[in-house]
């Protein structure tokens, strides 16, 4: 099994969620996060005093999936989240040893 983690722009979340649902992905975890990459932050001005805001708001999506579906999930996220402008985010894949469904105790791929 694989864990697909994606950092995307907040306003593309609904589109990405739709694309993953069409792929048959049954669940995901979403969190609001802050960070920066090459995009860096931005500047805000309060009563003439400039503040540099280093961390930009992003959304992190985590999806655990079968090995076979991982590439499709990655592609779906990358294509949907792409605006072509700097700051579109990243997607990466990590191996997952096991998964347990808390309610039933099922393990492995059955628990997805």
């Amino acid at each position, binding site marked *: 099994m694989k864990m697909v983690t994606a950092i995307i722009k907040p306003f593309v979340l609904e589109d990405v969620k739709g694309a993953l649902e069409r792929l048959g992905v049954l669940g995901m975890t979403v969190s609001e996060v802050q960070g920066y990459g090459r995009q860096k932050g931005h500047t805000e*001005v*309060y*009563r*003439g*005093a*400039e*503040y*540099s805001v280093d961390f930009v708001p992003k959304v992190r999506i985590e999806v655990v999936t079968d090995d076979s579906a991982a590439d499709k999930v990655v592609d779906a996220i990358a294509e949907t989240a792409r605006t072509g402008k700097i700051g579109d985010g990243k997607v990466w894949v990590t191996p997952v040893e096991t998964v347990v469904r808390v309610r039933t105790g099922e393990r492995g791929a059955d628990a997805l």
Partner: protein
Amino acid sequence: MTPVELDSGNTAWILTSAALVLLMTPGLALFYGGQARSKNVLNMMMMVFGTLATVGVLWVLFGYSVAFGTDVGAGLLGNPVEFFGLSSMLTPEAQTDGLPDLAFVAFQGMFAILTTGLIAGAAADRMKFNTWMVFTLLWATLVYFPVAHWVFDLDNGWIAAGLGALDFAGGTAVHINAGVAALVLCIFLGKRRGWPREAMRPHNLTMVMLGAGMLWFGWFGFNAGSAGSAGWEASYAFVNTIAATAAAIVGWLIVEQIRDGKPTSLGAASGIVAGLVAITPACASVSPIGAMIIGVIAGVACAYAVGLKFKLGFDDSFDVVGVHLVGGVIGTLMIGLLATEVAPDGANGLFYGGGFSQLGIQAIAALAVIVYCAVVTAIIVGILKATMGLRIDDDSEATGIDEGEHAESGYDFSSLRGGSSLGSSHSALSAPTQVSATAGKES
């Protein structure tokens, strides 16, 4: 004085105005509270609300008497025991020109509360709450009540009657006074940890804008209520309170557009307050065009003045000096230029052929309040620093003063606190270990 029939119209307007001015205090709490960081919002609002308690009590006990009692000499002070507890004025005959004296007591009491509350904006995030409460008691007693006598006792006060300065609703007694006190207090307090290196952004600008709107609304009572009646003079002050404030927003936003590239919501809210401050002394002495000139100058000047603290290194957190002291001085002095005899509280200023005399009088009035307030506030704060201490400890300041001084937090957005054992639990219903959360505060 021969008893006259009560004027119900005037009485209704002054009581309404008193309630409007009361609303300025919670408005100010929102205005300052929104500019604080989220971990400090409650303390900021409590400092302002605290003056409702302390100064409200003092006003009834002896504050009114010091400000408006029979003059003890030279226009410096009213007799502090004459109206102690207000008990000597509890008859229907206690009225002046058809207005019950108690209505005037209520109206002026709200001024004392608001003026003291204004100072809190300079002391954000770092002052012991108990020391602040004692400070408000001492400052109102030793600074505000006497200065209110100078400026607002039109028959006896040395600035109003002796000098002949025009200060309709308190450019000197309220705004210059609070601004100077704020400067002295924040110098004695010292800077917040990390200021100005660390970004201390306002946590809720919608609160700031709501607060500014409430201040403007209440300010109609402040300025138009200062007419003491419900007629032409009140309407005159009312319209100037619109004209100057509108122009001040324009002035502040133009500075931001040119200097910073973007007009901001904090700038609009600040422009409102700057315009209101500057027109306060002048609202019944200048024409509406004059009011707009005062407003736009205050908006532009204050937009620049709020940057002074970074150059000079005093942590006047929410710009009480840059807005109230600077705006108050501008309004007070510009009466000397723009006052016109056509206005209800008029005299001819420099631009209306009156020469420099009124301008000189206005400058003396402003300077007298600045010097008196600076000296007495420094003595009060110096004594408090040596006895009670001014600053909370570094840990409390880092964690947030809300938790350290009030054991509360302004916002509960974390779902972890909604029911999981990781969050809070009721100390009365759980093991004694929970008590440690409060025990730490005392040590």
